[in-house]
């Protein structure tokens, strides 16, 4: 059976409680049961419910999730055309993503979804067309994007330094984001030893850590189990609710109820 404290800990992390606070709350609960000799379940109740109570007392009384209204356009693309050799993968594609909006890009394999995202990120040049962006961009690739021989904490340090965070702050922020993806113990494991799903969590955490205004996510949930997959969407909505613009490339049509706008790319266009 899983330890009550472990369940409680990951429940707090998943709710986005900062890593340092989680450590303190768990330690305090542990000290209490140590002193009183009472089992945690009877002292604190179920771990999930107690996590809710803790979160409620940590957050100012602002009932429910308030969603920011759709704001200005943060990402605008016009007339994007891209050819690889003689094959035209993107023809005159346009898109607008507002602050507080989630856009899904869907389409069959090879229809240029990832290419479009890279063009928006400014990593690939189109043959014609323009991309306009307000603020900073974050990009999360389908795979790769990590450094094999560095640990998760070192990745956090690397990305954190980009926005001026010191080592300890970057680690704290990174672990907090990782916790929201149900990854309770990033830390000393090198990226090359992580499973595919966990590596993607690292990738997503890195994107979150740089606090971008426009988030471009290229099917970042590959290898996620069901629970993490739902946490991923919670995270996307949390970004949206904070007024970010989020673009998710996906091939799963069942997800389309989770987004605000859908852009379908197809070769028949």
């Amino acid at each position, binding site marked *: 059976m899983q330890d009550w404290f472990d369940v409680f800990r990951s429940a707090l992390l998943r709710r986005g409680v900062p890593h340092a606070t989680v450590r303190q709350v768990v330690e305090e609960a542990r000290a209490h049961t140590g002193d009183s000799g009472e089992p945690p379940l009877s002292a604190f109740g179920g771990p999930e419910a107690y996590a809710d109570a803790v979160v409620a007392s940590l957050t100012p009384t602002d009932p429910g999730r308030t969603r920011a209204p759709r704001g200005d356009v943060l990402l605008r693309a016009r007339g994007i055309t891209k050819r690889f050799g003689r094959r035209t993968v993107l023809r005159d594609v346009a898109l607008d993503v507002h602050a507080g909006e989630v856009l899904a890009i869907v389409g069959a394999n090879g229809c240029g979804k990832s290419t479009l995202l890279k063009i928006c990120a400014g*990593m690939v040049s189109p043959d014609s067309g323009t991309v306009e*962006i307000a603020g900073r961009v974050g990009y999360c690739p389908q795979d790769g994007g990590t450094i094999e*021989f560095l640990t998760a904490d070192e990745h956090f*340090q690397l990305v954190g*330094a980009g926005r*001026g965070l010191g080592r300890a702050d970057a680690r704290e922020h990174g672990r907090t984001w990782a916790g929201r993806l149900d990854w309770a113990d990033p830390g000393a494991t090198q990226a090359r030893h992580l499973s595919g799903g966990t590596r993607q969590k690292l990738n997503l955490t890195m*994107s979150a850590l740089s606090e971008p205004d426009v988030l471009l996510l290229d099917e970042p949930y590959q290898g996620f189990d069901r629970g993490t997959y739902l946490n991923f969407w919670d995270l996307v909505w949390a970004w949206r609710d904070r007024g970010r613009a989020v673009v998710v490339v996906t091939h799963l049509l069942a997800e389309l109820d989770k987004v605000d706008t859908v852009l379908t790319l197809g070769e028949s266009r």
Partner: protein
Amino acid sequence: MRKTWTIAELTVRDVLRRRGVIVLMLLLPTAFYLLRHNDSPGQSVRLLCLGLSWGVSTAGLFVAASARAVEPRLRLSGYATAQLYLGRLCALWTLGFALLVPFAVVVRFDHPWMRPAGIVLAMAFCVLIGAPLGLLIGGLLPRELEGMLLLLIVCALQMMVNPDDLLMEMLPLWSSREIGIWAVDEPDDLGYLLRGVAAGVAWTIALVGLVGGVSAVRLRRRAHVRAL
């Protein structure tokens, strides 16, 4: 400054964890040094320099390869291109100079009659030149294997070209060779030293510039992206 420092620190960690690269960095100079150790001390020191440079270049190649996937993201998350490549260069130079020390000590005790300053200088240019050379090749060729082959060609040319050939003067490690001649064979002819230093400085500057240029092109802000 902190960003450059972060890149340098994490690059050093990255390299130190690759046991294969570390072994190669140590093994190449050692093997080269032992190859002609008994019959031609001068030659063996020259080969040692070559091996040192090759080892550092190889490390540079791997560093460039592992950076390739993340650098565009790091650019997006607030790094300047110069911070990225200068950080990596500093890391490689640090590692190279750390590697240089034990070999310099060995030569000092092995051949006390050689000029120690000259030996260290010849080795230093191997490190100074080898690091950006590896990064440059890694930046131009996407696959490590191709980079390795190119590095092998440069190294083999360096070893096999006739010393009197004009081509020799155009190879990157000619400087180290000239300084080596001053340190070992022609202690009275300062010309070797001066030519060597001049060539070494020129090559270092040129290679660092090229690495910067290649990075700037690869990580450039694309013309189609504008601020809203």
